[in-house]
């Protein structure tokens, strides 16, 4: 299965299973790194093609626009912060420090709509939204096997109120930091809304983990550094799961 991960051929659940094992297996880490390098080298075979005139100027202009958008060094308001993150991660619905009641209602409606679309499996855009961060996460992991200790991925169990372990969460440092949730024995199927609580007590929305049967995986960028994550909550009506990294 390492070859599937190295070539991005592994799907979400398989990918989570592989990562779960690889995290604790130095031999597989080495194998995965070598296979990934081999797979990436194949990209050199794609024929070169000159892009349309002015391509480089358009790229530089885009980067300059994004740089300019970063100029306000300190986000003055939650609205500014959300707008900036949405600009940087246009397909990601967050972060959202605990919003006003109206925003919560709107968010719940959006979450519900997304869950329906996901369950129906008919939203190509949703597939894009779900698979892109997942793939980027795996890619980041593939390329992040050789890291300093303080940059190493962290993992933590997902537990029920009764202390039963129902899955694991993996936190990957980087820019941005990433989170991968893998539930293997979820109490109920459906969408679990994830929230990240920082060491400073601020709560951010962190996406939804869709569970089919008892199994579900989801990958999202984190709105804060891994070191700032105090806990993660996963909730759906009547159920609350906790993670303490």
């Amino acid at each position, binding site marked *: 299965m390492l070859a599937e991960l190295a070539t*991005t*051929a592994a799907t979400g659940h398989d990918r989570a299973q592989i990562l779960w094992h690889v995290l604790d297996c130095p031999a597989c880490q080495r194998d995965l790194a070598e296979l990934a390098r081999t797979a990436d*080298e194949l*990209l050199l*075979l*794609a024929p*070169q*093609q000159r892009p349309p005139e002015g391509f480089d100027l358009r790229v530089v202009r885009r980067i300059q626009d994004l740089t300019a958008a970063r100029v306000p060094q300190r986000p003055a308001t939650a609205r500014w912060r959300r707008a900036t993150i949405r600009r940087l991660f246009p397909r990601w619905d967050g972060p959202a420090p605990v919003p006003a009641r109206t925003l919560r209602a709107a968010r719940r409606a959006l979450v519900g709509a997304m869950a329906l679309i996901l369950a129906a499996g008919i939203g190509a855009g949703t597939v894009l939204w779900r698979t*892109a961060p997942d793939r980027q996460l795996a890619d980041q992991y593939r390329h992040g096997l050789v890291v300093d200790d303080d940059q190493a991925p962290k993992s933590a169990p997902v537990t029920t109120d009764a202390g039963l372990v129902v899955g694991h969460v993996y936190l990957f440092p980087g820019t941005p930091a990433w989170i991968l949730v893998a539930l293997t024995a979820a109490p109920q199927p459906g969408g679990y809304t994830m929230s990240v609580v920082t060491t400073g007590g601020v709560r951010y929305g962190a996406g939804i983990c869709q569970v089919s049967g008892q199994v579900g995986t989801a990958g999202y960028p984190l709105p804060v550094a891994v070191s700032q994550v105090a806990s993660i909550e996963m909730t759906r009506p009547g159920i609350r799961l906790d993670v303490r990294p």
Partner: protein
Amino acid sequence: MGVTDDGLLAGMAAGDAQAASAFVRRHQARVFGLALTIVGVPAVAEEVAQEAFVRAWRFAGAYDPRRGAVTTWLLAIARNAAIDAVRLGRDRPYDPDVLIDMISQVNDGQTDDYPEQLADAHRIRAALTQLPHDQRVAVVLAAIYGLTAREIAEREQIPIGTAKTRIRLGLARLRSQLEVRDE
């Protein structure tokens, strides 16, 4: 050759427009070519290629030269961006034979400012052609086009286990052959 790829990438990450422009010009043909190979539509390929460079700028701090060359790192970013785009139109038919023929051809008509990269491409192409056809197709569809094992199985009308085996054996053989040639 002037400034190294690493140097230009660092300059781009630091906001140096000249470095960014030089970095883009140096790699734009490879990135656009890969994007066009995957998405098949020039306008979409340009958008994908632009996005790849923006992602490279954004994540430049995560690049580690110990893990591989800037070129392959950048192309992996471009592949991911292209896969994201093509997911919206997954019903587009793939023709692996055309693809295999294309990448199996000697790169005669192309020039490359970096002879070592051209040599790498020849070396990889030679190793790829040593694989059995089925494995070659599976590896290329997975590694370049980003198809999952299930998608390859559906496309090739084979059991998913067979698709996984072809990917695994093909990539392992490719790695072995490249290792032998590296020694």
